[in-house]
């Protein structure tokens, strides 16, 4: 039996998987295979991340000394704007749903592809066009901050001329994101195979689903807002421009109506990944499955009605402030539920400190800091002091980078064997994690103190005697350490592709469907509709030395057995 399994697992994949299915550039450029599209997204997103990271290092270097080390004011303003814009629109929003989600979601679900493969490819090319627009915006210069606040952004004598290309880019990226979301919702609704009920879906799918709902419902509003901004700037229509009877604060409402939900677009899928990481690497059934699932939905719903907490000092009415503050706190509860359930999952587990697990645990620590500091910001009287200082910068790096991005990186490690069919060097992985974790906290924890002591954000220079410099220096050193960690990571990933050990179908002991096809998966994922069970019931698996991975236990009947296999085909 075992030998038969081994053969059927290993042999076909060597020459026959989605990577080798067809060859040539065009077979990638025009591919409709969700896995290849996922890989193209992955490469592009990592490229954008490198670019955004370079701008981040420029920002950090500038702030080493009070008068600014390397840039003038205009250059600094462009550096942080491009850093923020690239990281948000090109990296973190597409990272998990479009890159990892595209790859694993249909397989996890047991489908052969997403519902609309052509639309999927189109989303990718929209991303590319949007990215090109963003890059083109650099030519004219873009210095508005990623928020494009009016009236600065619509005033030609203020903001540089890259505004229109940039908002066009963001508009197009928005549609890329909408189409991805639509595709995923339909896939989850309509392509679930028999047996894959809603409450048998892996939690990653729940979070992808909740994310997709936000993408579909919030992004159009951003689209029309940015279109209005471009029209306003080009023709002076007087919608946001106070000089023409418009209302600049209206723009903020429109913008945050999208961008607050957007922060949960970033973190929800990461939370989904962490649910998988913790359960799989603790070899332990997830605790409180339905609470975690529903809390994703709750976060998705609440996220639409808290946008005003970015505008506590904008002069909106006091009543609005109070209401928004109140709802903001209510989002903390579903987040708390998730954290506690993850902890409970580890109880009585058999916890392997694999690199993905380290990222899972790192996520919990960093998200705790990021989320708990959200509470200061949600508290009205305190936010008045902290708004638009480095405290906010630190908060959102802990949530966006320390949580969302770390979820992505963790997921990348987790699914890397599946995507490439190769194992990376575990020790290098653990080393890079430790380096990252140290550098990360040096960079951003100091920024909490900077902020509470009054250092405003978006400052290219700062007073020399205000006591800020020490923190800035620590922060910059941390950023360099972090950069080294990321380059290490890039190094061992690349090395694994060219010389890594072959990965088993199921190296970690996962139970969801993607671990039940070969690594890398075949072109069509599954030749038969797979039958599904409890995807966190790991008791059916055992370690198999021959394949260096987990296999189904012989003494338990496999629910997915089909007649073709039974007949020994």
């Amino acid at each position: 039996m075992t030998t038969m399994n081994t053969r059927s697992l290993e042999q076909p994949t060597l020459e026959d998987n989605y990577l080798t299915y067809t060859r040539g550039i065009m077979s990638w450029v025009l591919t409709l295979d969700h896995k290849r599209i996922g890989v193209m997204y992955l490469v592009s997103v990592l490229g954008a991340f490198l670019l955004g990271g370079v701008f981040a290092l420029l920002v950090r270097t500038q702030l080493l000394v009070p008068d600014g080390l390397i840039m003038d004011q205009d250059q600094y303003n462009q550096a942080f704007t491009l850093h923020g814009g690239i990281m948000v629109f090109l990296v973190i929003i597409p990272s998990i749903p479009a890159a990892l989600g595209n790859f694993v979601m249909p397989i996890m679900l047991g489908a052969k592809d997403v519902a609309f493969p052509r639309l999927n490819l189109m989303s990718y090319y929209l991303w590319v066009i949007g990215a090109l627009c963003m890059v083109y915006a650099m030519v004219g210069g873009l210095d508005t901050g990623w928020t494009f606040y009016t009236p600065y952004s619509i005033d030609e004598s203020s903001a540089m001329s890259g505004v229109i290309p940039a908002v066009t880019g963001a508009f197009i990226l928005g549609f890329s994101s909408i189409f991805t979301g639509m595709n995923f919702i339909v896939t989850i609704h309509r392509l679930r195979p028999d047996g894959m009920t809603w409450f048998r879906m892996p939690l990653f799918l729940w979070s992808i689903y909740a994310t997709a709902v936000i993408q579909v419902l919030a992004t159009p509003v951003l689209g029309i807002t940015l279109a209005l901004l471009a029209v306003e700037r080009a023709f002076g229509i007087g919608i946001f421009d106070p000089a023409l009877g418009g209302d600049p604060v209206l723009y903020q409402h429109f913008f945050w109506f999208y961008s607050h939900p957007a922060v949960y677009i970033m973190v929800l899928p990461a939370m989904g990944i962490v649910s998988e990481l913790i359960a799989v690497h603790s070899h332990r059934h997830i605790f409180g499955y339905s609470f975690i699932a529903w809390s994703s939905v709750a976060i998705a719903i609440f996220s639409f009605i808290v946008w005003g907490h970015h505008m506590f000092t904008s002069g909106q009415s006091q009543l609005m402030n109070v209401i928004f503050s109140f709802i903001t706190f209510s989002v903390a509860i579903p987040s708390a539920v998730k954290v506690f359930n993850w902890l409970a999952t580890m109880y009585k587990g058999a916890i392997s400190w694999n690199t993905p697990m380290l990222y899972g645990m790192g996520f919990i620590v960093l998200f705790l800091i990021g989320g708990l500091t959200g509470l200061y910001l949600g508290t009205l009287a305190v936010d008045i002091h902290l708004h638009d200082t480095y405290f906010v910068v630190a908060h959102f790096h802990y949530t966006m980078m320390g949580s969302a991005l770390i979820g992505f990186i963790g997921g990348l490690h987790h699914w890397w064997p599946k995507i490439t069919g190769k194992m990376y060097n575990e020790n290098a992985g653990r080393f890079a994690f430790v380096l990252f974790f140290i550098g990360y906290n040096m960079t951003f924890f100091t920024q909490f103190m900077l902020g509470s002591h009054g250092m405003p954000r978006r400052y290219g220079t700062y007073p020399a005697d205000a006591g800020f410099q020490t923190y800035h220096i620590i922060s910059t050193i941390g950023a360099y350490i972090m950069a080294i960690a990321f380059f290490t990571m890039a190094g061992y990933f690349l090395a694994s592709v060219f010389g890594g050990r072959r990965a088993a179908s199921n190296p970690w002991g996962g139970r969801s469907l993607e671990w039940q096809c070969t690594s890398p998966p075949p072109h069509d994922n599954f030749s038969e509709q797979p039958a599904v069970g409890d995807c966190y019931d790991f008791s059916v698996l055992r370690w198999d030395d021959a394949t260096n991975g987990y296999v189904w236990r012989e003494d338990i009947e496999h629910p997915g057995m089909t007649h073709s296999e039974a007949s020994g085909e």
Partner: protein
Amino acid sequence: MTQLHVQSDGHEEHGHDHDHDHPEFLGHHWKNPVQQFEAGKLGMWLFLATEVLLFGGLFCAYAIWRSNHPEIFKYGSQFLDTTWGAINTGVLLISSMTMAMAVTFAARGNNRAVIVTLILTLFGAAGFMAIKYVEYNHKFHEGFYPGMAFYEQPHASELWMPLEETAIAKKAAIAQSEAAASTALAVEDAKRAEMPSPPADAQRWNKPEAAIGPQGMTTNQESLDIAEMAVFLPPSVLGNIIDQTGELQYAEHHTPGEPVHLAHPLQDPERPANAQKFFTIYFLMTGLHGIHVVIGGVVILWLLLKTMKGHFSREYYTPIDLGGLYWHIVDVIWIFLFPLFYLI
């Protein structure tokens, strides 16, 4: 036992291992046509939701502007031609009906009827755009541009021809003799001749000077009366605030539908401040809607060609069904736009 069957049939034609037949129009990842159809439908509904939200932003803007400046909308809507608007509404409604018929015929597999009804729908789309073209053209001709362009050139053409021509003609016949009318015209001609450049106060519309928005005054107004503000406000700003008194009075002196001879806004002393905003939002919303009509037209044309080539059948007409959904939403949006701009 065994792992989940993972052997790949990648190189072979898909479908060989399925018990049911796998028709050509069915994507390789679908189990059966019903599944594919349902998915397409769900996808379309989601897309329509995003469309509604896209317009939703503009409807919000409309609502906010209108509640802040009802007088601008009362004033501006007089310049729209209700008749054309109503005709266009009819055109769209009828084309929606023919589209619905096309879907029904497609479901029955009656291809010829589908072709006829699709052509009719296409005529509807074209007719709508033609009428929009006439309307837009007229507006541009008169100098009704969106945004600040509204004030840029004093319009060179004849005076605006009032909308309620009949009402005004009646009024004129009763109240004025031929002679009186011609003198009035002569006076107006003379006035116009004296205006080679923008009206003297056009400077007011230069961006930086008119620096204050009306809703601005609602915050913290309690403690700040205008006299107090004069101490430190530049006169340009102050002037604009005082302006509003007149602007608000405008609405009181006019009732909607009252048959008046409309002076061109640029020469109208009673024009409310920021009158251009009406045309801004009008062109934005109807323009975006127009783009959707054009896209809808292209989609219908494509469906028509496909039908003529015989791509669709009783078993498979999903694209027609989805195209129909799209066309209906375009129609529904117009149903909202028409009263908002032309009627109220």
